[in-house]
């Protein structure tokens, strides 16, 4: 196990959390920091989906590489 593994795991978990948050905004179940208190918030959902992608990319960068 190399030192970068915990970071990769943390970023992977963060990515999953962001996906859940994105889904909650998309279905209108989450209303935190939104301009209206009802309905879906696609702008927030897209943002958290992008953050999820960035987290997974980061996790892949942080994952231990095998020598080729």
């Amino acid at each position: 196990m190399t030192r970068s593994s915990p970071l990769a795991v943390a970023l992977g978990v963060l990515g999953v959390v962001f996906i859940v948050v994105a889904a909650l905004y998309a279905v209108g179940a989450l209303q935190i920091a939104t301009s209206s208190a009802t309905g879906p918030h696609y702008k927030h959902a897209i943002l958290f989906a992008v953050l999820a992608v960035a987290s997974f990319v980061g996790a892949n960068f942080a994952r231990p590489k095998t020598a080729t």
Partner: protein
Amino acid sequence: MAPLTLAQALFMGLLQGASELFPVSSLGHAVIVPSLLHWSFKQSDPSFVPFLVLLHLGTATALLVLYRSEWVAIIRGFFTAAIRGQMKTDTERLAMLLLVGTIPAAVLGVFLESRIKSLFASPYVAAGFLVANGFLMLGFEILRRRAEGRATLASESRREQEAHFGSAEQISFLAAAIVGACQAFAFLPGISRSGVTIGGGLLAGLRHEEAARFSFLLATPVILGAGLVEMPGLFQGGVPVGEYLAAAVLAGIAAYASARFLLRYFRSGRLDPYGWYCITAGLASLALLHFSL
């Protein structure tokens, strides 16, 4: 009824497209100029937001056309590096720098943009921030001249001086994130998005032309994304899509021409003329607004 006449829509398209990429704040101009011209259209009209969306999509399209081959390489580089988990080429690094630079702007944009814009959407405030933007541009150049002085480049020509600084691919990830976050200052009408990102690039050690290139590449996903998420508003009844599309095309043409001009200008030019323009235009606007001329 449309909030704008066709002539006003075309004028606003030209103004937005021309001023979006120049470091002079398109939002500031969009707030100040209609007030100075005593135009009485309602910016609160439901069809005004789709109008702004189309203008921004016009500008984003111009940037995509300008950098079309580079964007193809950047997107390919992004997926290659993301899947491999390693950056091996300059293009792959640039793709990741753009991702890192875009995220802070997107987060701040989604959570703060509408609140900040509604707080400061007054022509007086916009004129005041335009003056501040001018001093900011001059400040960036003062710091840059100090860096040139430390590197004893004073005796060299401008092109030789510029050659000592780096390209967009060489900026650090921290600097890319900070430059990206600086885009949030552009929510203040009068503060220029391209101005703060070009200035940030200069502070990070980029050549002027490369700072402008990084600024334009960084702006593309933000402008495009902000436009696309507002697209559903275009399909509401009462939106004069034909007139607004004509204005968007004009905005795109103006943005393309201004980007080409700026990339050429920044091979040896500096931000100073735009700084002086902003100070002069801001002070003149304040005087005109105050005396209701």
